[in-house]
């Protein structure tokens, strides 16, 4: 079974996936660092050229049209044209960790996920990486550039994926592929993949849910600057209501599968790439379904929730079951919706604020803006918990 089935470790008596435990412990060490100095384009170009020559072993490399990409609350992103005498010219993307961001994730896991998924769904192709950051200044990866948009070019939504409304034709095209690719991701048999950076929650039926609860409650407790009674209530409720996950329901969970995290071509309406694999893990398939249906990146039409602005929730669940044979448990779905909102509050009202306060990000101003979405997530979480109580 390879190292995927490694035993779980306990960090401060918390049962967490070992890679996540290591990652969270490492993030605490970054806190005392001085302000993050944003690199100039010239500095980035110099680092890239040295990397291409010494690490990628390209001959006479040149970097042209280097530009920063907007968006990306957690990563610094650059696009550039790469040429060399022993390399076909290619447009590339450099995706680099700032000192701290909205979430703490590992480039090593992200690259591993891209390598696993490259033959399954369209993803950016990983070309080179620097997991430690001693060559490129910060942990980073370089992929090919994939064209496409995350929202209609005339859209007025202020953050990619938040409340994106599509016209009927676009919606019909995208929803079919959106569903097909989700099913394809969940069909990958993680048991056959020998990759040491993913561990499976197989110690007991509740470990999948417990690992996620422990991950995000640890993030909240480590990063919060003030308490929120509702977060405590949600934590207590989740711990009292951990769902079971049977082995066949354990899948590679993308964990941020929603509108805003795929690129599509506005002419052909084809999805050109599924993005943001940094939170991928082995877990319960309900987690991705619940996340895609969070209201903030969905829309409501005639009183019906359109998952990620694309497909009515009932149809989404029905299609998923028809295609995969997996039966959706409404209680488990509800649990993962609460978890998804809890996670979103932790990201907005704790980690983002902390990173901005310490000037540890290249977009502190975006983080302090995004933080205010936390109250929307909190309100939605309260409604979900109330529904549970009234059942």
């Amino acid at each position, binding site marked *: 079974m390879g190292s995927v089935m490694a035993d779980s470790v306990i960090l401060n008596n918390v049962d967490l996936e070992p890679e996540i435990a290591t990652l969270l412990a490492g993030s605490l060490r970054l806190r005392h660092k001085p302000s993050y100095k944003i690199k100039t384009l010239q500095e980035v170009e110099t680092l890239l050229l040295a990397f291409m020559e010494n690490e990628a072993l390209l001959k006479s490399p040149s970097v042209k049209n280097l530009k*920063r990409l*907007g968006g990306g609350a957690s990563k610094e992103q650059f696009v550039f044209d790469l040429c060399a005498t022993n390399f076909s010219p290619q447009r590339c993307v450099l995706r680099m960790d700032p000192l701290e961001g909205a979430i703490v994730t590992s480039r090593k896991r992200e690259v591993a996920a891209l390598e696993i998924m490259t033959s399954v769904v369209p993803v950016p192709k990983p070309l080179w990486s620097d997991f430690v950051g001693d060559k490129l200044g910060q942990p980073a990866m370089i992929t090919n550039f994939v064209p496409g948009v995350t929202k209609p070019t005339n859209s007025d939504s202020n953050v990619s994926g938040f409340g994106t409304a599509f016209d009927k034709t676009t919606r019909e095209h995208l929803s079919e592929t959106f569903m097909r690719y989700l099913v394809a991701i969940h069909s990958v048999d993680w048991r056959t993949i020998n990759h040491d950076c993913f561990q499976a929650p197989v110690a007991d039926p509740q470990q999948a849910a417990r690992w996620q609860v422990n991950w995000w409650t640890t993030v909240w407790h480590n990063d919060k600057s003030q308490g929120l009674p509702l977060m405590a*209530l949600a934590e207590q409720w989740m711990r009292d209501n951990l769902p079971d996950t049977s082995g066949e329901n354990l899948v590679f969970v993308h964990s941020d599968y929603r509108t805003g995290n795929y690129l599509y071509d506005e002419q052909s309406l084809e999805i050109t790439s599924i993005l943001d694999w940094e939170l991928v893990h082995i877990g319960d398939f309900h987690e991705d379904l619940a996340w895609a249906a969070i209201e903030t990146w969905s829309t409501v039409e005639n009183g019906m929730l359109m998952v990620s602005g694309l497909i009515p929730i009932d149809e989404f669940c029905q299609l998923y079951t028809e295609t995969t044979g997996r039966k959706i448990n409404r209680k488990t779905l509800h649990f993962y919706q609460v978890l998804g909102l809890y996670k979103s509050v932790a990201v907005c009202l704790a980690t983002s604020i902390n990173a901005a306060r310490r000037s540890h990000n290249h977009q502190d101003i975006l983080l302090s803006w995004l933080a205010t979405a936390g109250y929307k997530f909190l309100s939605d979480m309260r409604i979900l918990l109330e529904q549970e*109580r009234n059942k």
Partner: protein
Amino acid sequence: MIPSAELRLNTMVRAMTESILPAIDPENSLVQEQARLMIGHLQALLQQHGREAEINQQEYQDLTQLAIFLTSVADGGEYTKTTRNELMQALDSQSASLSLVIEKLITAPDATTEFKKSAWQPIMDYSEKSNARGRDWFKVMGF
């Protein structure tokens, strides 16, 4: 105070909108985005100007009421008892850590089921008010 904070914020928005933003390279999407966010933050500050102390006071009052209720019903093992005492001290000293201690008590691992049941609705009621206040406060940000 002359000039007022309101006037200064208004002039910043105008400078950003009419002079600085048009001068930024349209190809530089990151800087364009940051400039727009800055205008948004300034507009939010304008709308919130002068009300922050009042909002914080309302929040603290509601939190205090919740804390008083929780100390009256908290029941459980040693951890719950110790945290209940900690919360009473935080109330007496009007400590800034009040919200943190409330969280600690709610998540106490040895709390009784009765305590959890009786705490549920008051926490939900407090949160409804507090969330509505937070959403209203940041409404201008578009969430």
